[in-house]
């Protein structure tokens, strides 16, 4: 935690703006995931279309972040903690952009599932999405606060997401075996579940970046969650 | 955009600026006046002496010595006496003064005693020259029984007088050598002596020589102390060595000016011209030497 601001106030402003960008990106990505899941549950085709459109905003923010980071490094010559922060911001923006892409991917499947009947496993997915987006929200907060302990806590929640995924996988497999004519829909749901599981993994990746930026050391292996059983 | 411009072009500002330049012009004029007035006195002296003395440069004026007959007098004896005296003065005052300056600036530790020495030397430089004459009389003549009226004694006395001037000039010159040069020499592993003699003294030399010039000019023109030690005798033949009785040019002028015979007036003026030329020559030589040793750092 920094004790005081930089002697050059403009440097502080640059760093604050960078963090604001990341926060904004994260907010957009979280909203995209939640919204895509809602459209999936309610079969809202127009909403899904909106999510797909809105992904462009996230991409634009990533480009902006990269531009800001390069400028900051060239003009401010950040050192030590500042340098780690700035490099972390760059990496995190890439990861958040990918999370946004997952939301877009989910939204694209809404059109396909629109005319399907109610599918049992569908009910588990919103909860999974809530946990995953909660992780993203908390880890980005940890980044802004430079809170290494919070980052570790986020990692611990990935296990819950992975367990959810295992459960959905088994359920869908069973459903597919019982309802072969519905395999297409089920396969899509499988992919949706996989996307949400990946969101959780990305959140732990961000947590590692946050931990390193805050402490200068790498998170130990035991803290990370287990990989999913099914690959 | 209007407001700032107006400030610089307003009438009040123009008046202020005009006053500033007027003050500068007044000051320059005053300065010029001061120089002109000082030079006027010098010019006046030169012109008067020239007018009065030009006739005195008859045959043999420059080669004869003192004589009772005004037509036979010459300045050579006094000139030689001055030369011998100044040689003795410089031979003593310069090394002693420079070494004293070096010791006081470089080697002596800061203490009350050394501060006392510094104050004393500064005071010595201001002591009236006739006191040195008394000193010379008491020490060199009465105590050491050196030959009276010899250029050796005159030189010794004047050396006492000139040394403080050289010490002061030397100390200031040494103080003005930048410490970076000293640091550089020390950094290479030079000892204190090497720093002083290889680096500091060569750089201080111009300043020391300036002080020497000032001291020498003063010594050349001294009359009172030399009168006290007896360099006022009637010397008909020029001195051959340092222990022969001699007189110096200023004293010679003084003696001639006392003479009753009107013909001596011309000779006195001529001698004054010779003295001035002699001083110009010596000073010129010293300045030439100083410029040769000048180094820019």
């Amino acid at each position, binding site marked *: 935690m920094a004790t005081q601001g930089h002697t050059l106030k403009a440097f502080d402003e640059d760093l604050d703006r960078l963090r604001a960008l990341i926060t904004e990106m994260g907010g957009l990505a979280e909203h995209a995931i939640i919204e895509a899941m809602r459209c999936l549950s309610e079969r809202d085709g127009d909403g899904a279309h909106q999510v797909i459109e809105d992904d462009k905003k996230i991409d634009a923010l990533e480009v902006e972040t990269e531009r800001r980071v390069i400028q900051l490094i060239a003009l401010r010559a950040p050192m030590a903690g500042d340098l780690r922060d700035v490099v972390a911001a760059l990496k995190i923006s890439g990861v958040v952009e990918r999370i946004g892409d997952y939301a877009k991917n989910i939204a694209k499947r809404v059109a396909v599932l629109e005319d399907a009947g109610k599918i049992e496993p569908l009910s588990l997915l919103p909860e999974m999405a809530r946990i995953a987006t909660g992780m993203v929200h908390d880890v980005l907060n940890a980044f802004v606060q430079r809170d290494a302990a919070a980052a570790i806590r986020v990692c611990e929640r990935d296990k819950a997401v992975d367990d959810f995924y295992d459960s959905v996988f088994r359920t869908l497999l069973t459903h597919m075996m019982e309802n072969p004519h519905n395999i297409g829909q089920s396969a899509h749901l499988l992919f949706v579940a996989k996307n949400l599981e990946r969101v959780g993994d990305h959140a732990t990746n961000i947590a590692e970046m946050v931990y390193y930026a805050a402490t200068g050391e790498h998170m130990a292996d035991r803290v990370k969650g287990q990989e999913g059983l099914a690959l | 955009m209007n407001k700032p411009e107006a400030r610089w072009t307003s009438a009040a500002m123009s008046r202020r600026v005009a006053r500033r330049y007027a003050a500068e012009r007044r000051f320059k004029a005053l300065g010029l006046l001061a120089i002109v007035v000082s030079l006027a006195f010098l010019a006046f002296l030169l012109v008067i002496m020239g007018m009065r003395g030009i006739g005195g440069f008859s045959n043999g004026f420059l080669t004869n010595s003192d004589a009772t007959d005004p037509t036979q007098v010459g300045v050579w004896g006094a000139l030689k006496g001055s030369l011998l005296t100044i040689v003795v003065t410089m031979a003593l005052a310069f090394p002693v003064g420079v070494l004293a300056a070096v010791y006081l600036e470089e080697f002596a530790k800061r203490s009350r005693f050394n501060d006392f020495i510094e104050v004393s030397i500064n005071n010595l430089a201001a002591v009236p020259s006739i006191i040195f004459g008394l000193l010379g009389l008491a020490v060199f003549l009465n105590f050491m029984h050196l030959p009276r009226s010899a250029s050796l004694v005159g030189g010794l006395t004047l050396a006492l007088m000139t040394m403080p001037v050289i010490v002061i000039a030397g100390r200031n010159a040494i103080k003005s050598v930048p410490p970076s040069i000293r640091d*550089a020499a020390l950094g*290479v592993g030079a000892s204190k002596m090497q720093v002083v003699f290889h680096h500091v003294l060569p750089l201080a030399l111009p300043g020391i020589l300036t002080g020497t010039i000032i001291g020498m000019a003063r010594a050349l023109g001294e009359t009172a102390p030399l009168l006290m030690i007896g360099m006022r005798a009637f010397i008909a033949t020029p001195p051959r060595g340092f222990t022969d009785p001699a007189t110096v040019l200023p004293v010679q002028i003084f003696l001639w000016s006392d003479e009753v015979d009107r013909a001596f007036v011309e000779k006195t003026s001529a001698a004054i011209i010779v003295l001035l030329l002699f001083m110009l020559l010596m000073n010129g030589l010293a300045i030439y030497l100083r410029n040769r040793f000048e180094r820019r750092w």
Partner: protein
Amino acid sequence: MPDEKEPMLTNSTVPFPSTAIAAEAAADEVVPGERVADAEPGSAIVPDQVSGPGPKMRAEDVRVFYGEKEALKGVSIEIHEDKVTAFIGPSGCGKSTFLRCLNRMNDTIAGARVTGTITLDGEDISSPDMDVVQLRARVGMVFQKPNPFPKSIYENVAYGPRIHGLASGREELDGIVENSLRRAGLWDEVKDRLTESGTALSGGQQQRLCIARAIAVDPEVILMDEPCSALDPIATAKIEELIHELRGRYAIAIVTHNMQQAARVSQRTAFFHLGELIEYGKTKEIFTNPREQRTQDYITGRYG
């Protein structure tokens, strides 16, 4: 740019992927006789092992008093051969004062008192057996403002060897002068005008001349007190490159208030603050992950 290459993985539990990388890491990272300890904050000695050569110079609990004022408070540090050690810190923190202790230049300041022990190759430099003149030949110094002697270029470089009797004849002296000027990267620029005054050179050339002068007496350690602060960026870069080349022959200690320069040029960095040594360690660690908050504040520009 420090030329120590990074091993690919540092404290990961996965072993090095190949023996080649491992060998490289071993050669560059671990200097025989050196182990970076987890020092308590403030103590900051990098202790040496029992085996291997010791440090070139070592200071223990050095304090400097100007009259009553304590300008340097108990500094303990090591200067290693073939490494550049940078001293950084804000103005008045004592880094120049400490540098000047290493060749006893503080002796020339009236009223300065130095306590503590400083050793060169194990010998105490303030003992009566150590001749201060010889010490200053073994531990050379380059100053902040270039200060060549007001003599010819040749004389500038030849002065040191001459007074120490390092050359037995004119030819040998010529050789020393040429060698020193070559090593200082100045020979090609001045070889045709050795008799010209040293003060007629440009600022950067003058500073390289001063470096050549320091090298000419064949020192073991070179101390540099903000050598580039009076120079333009190009001259600065040339001198930094020169320092990099000199590193193999001499132990170099450099005081700088330019942190970028310390990062570029040194392998070890010591951070001073208000007369104390706050942190000392490998340059790349100091600038990416310093241990002390004060160091972090200074490096990131939060100081003051």
